[in-house]
């Protein structure tokens, strides 16, 4: 058991968005689907400890992280790629990649060349300010930076948002590659259900902050998704 979420409620201030969410993530690609406002971002932010847990528990590799501050997670192998604002615009691409600084210098260099190998377009732009990258390049940078942490799990929040269909294909291919080559567990929140289902192992559908459906991607019936979206 990797990530274990039990009876989780969370939200913003007095507003409760997520209610009684229970699931666990194994070594897999775990996809979270749901319409706009279903609570995908809220769920990922809560798992990344950027939002306080109102009730319930979150366990990661057997350790309770329910009340842990966010900055304790990277050293425990958890990386988070937010939906918005996922790069530092005033820092260069290279600086964005090395900011985590979890690794010692030799392994960082090694890791950096792996990231550049995965995303060759970042090499030419390494001195460019991240704020001047295109949406797709920015997304690559955000994924690359998460990889710099040598994580065991990556929480991706809508990596496909705002990208051309062609680029979404490439990006999802990379995510699959990360999953298979580096054995990283992936939690993927997506609007783009069709694309996400292509690479998913299991699917969680959120609807108005509650679990609508949780099952294997193979057994997944798209009509049930429609139900969730049309509430």
């Amino acid at each position, binding site marked *: 058991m990797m990530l274990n979420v039990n009876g989780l409620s969370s939200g913003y201030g007095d507003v409760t968005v997520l209610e009684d969410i229970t699931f666990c993530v194994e070594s897999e690609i775990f996809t979270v689907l749901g319409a706009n406002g279903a609570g995908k971002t809220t769920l990922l932010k809560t798992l990344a400890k950027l939002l306080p847990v109102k009730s319930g528990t979150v366990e990661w590799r057997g350790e309770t992280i329910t009340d842990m501050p966010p900055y304790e997670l990277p050293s425990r192998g958890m990386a*988070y790629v937010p939906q918005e604002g996922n790069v530092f615009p005033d820092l260069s691409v290279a600086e964005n990649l090395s900011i985590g600084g979890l690794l010692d210098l030799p392994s960082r260099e090694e890791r950096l060349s792996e990231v550049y190998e995965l995303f060759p377009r970042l090499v030419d732009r390494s001195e460019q300010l991240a704020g001047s990258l295109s949406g797709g390049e920015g997304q690559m940078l955000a994924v690359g930076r998460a990889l710099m942490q040598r994580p065991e799990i990556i929480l991706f929040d809508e990596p496909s948002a705002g990208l051309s269909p062609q680029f979404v294909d490439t990006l999802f291919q990379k995510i699959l590659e990360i999953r298979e080559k580096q054995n990283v567990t992936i939690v993927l929140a997506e609007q783009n259900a069709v694309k996400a289902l292509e690479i998913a192992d299991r699917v969680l559908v959120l609807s108005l902050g509650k679990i609508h459906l949780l099952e294997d991607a193979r057994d997944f019936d798209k009509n049930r998704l429609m139900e969730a979206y049309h509430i």
Partner: protein
Amino acid sequence: MAYLIFSITLMLVYIGLAQLLHIQFGMLGIPNFGIVGFWGLGMYSVGVLNVQWDFSFIPALILTLLLVALVANGLGRLILKLEGQAMLCATLAFSAIVALLVITEKWLTEGVVGLGTIKYPFDAGAMTEPLYFLILLLIVVGIQLFINKLHVSRLGTLIFSIRDNEELAASLGKDTVKIKLELFTLTCALMGLLGALSAPLNQFLTPNMLVPSVTFAVWIALILGGKEHSMGAVLGVFITFGLFDLLIESYLPVAPEYAVMVPNFKLFLYGAVLVAVLMYRPRGVLGHSAAGARQELP
């Protein structure tokens, strides 16, 4: 000559305050509108210790540094998690409280009557003031070297990342609140140090020295010079204080019959320069130092 030395020593105090604001606001994004509070607390603390309780200058200075650091740390714990505008109001309110306490706590500060005389910590005859100027110069140069180092260091990159996106920096493993609190405490304590060193410069302290216009003057200088540039503070104070307050107001060679016009002319020119800079160089005269100017990370 004595007036000139006094003026440029005072200018150094403003440069120091603007440099520290550069770290707080330009680098970390903390809008400290309570500068006069920290500066005034330092000044009055040395004054009270020195005049009322007969501490000699150096022990008074050390106690003052500790006091301001403690106050800044307490305030920082309260406000650094707030949104920008809330921080702005809170720091402004803090400086108003300091000014108010100075007026009401007469047993300590003599209130509106004023507190004095605070002597220079040493007596070198005619060389006292020039020597004191040198001490302040050393401090300002020291702060500048620290800033230059900060801009190219890993800590600097981390600071910029916090300013850019604090939540993201936290999710990358950085205890952002702690870093902000430590730097806020340090820089506010140094503002207090500059206040403490201003006490002998002013000799006689009155509550009307603790007005918000001190804070605003520092802000205007920094914004004018370039809040993100490592030299923005220095250049900004040179323009506002050096060019306008010192050169134009006191040393412009004008015929006596026109002398009455100088202050108005100065204000007019000052406003015009401010508007022009903000229109044509919204990030200040020096703009900001691009990432290319920073060194590669180790």
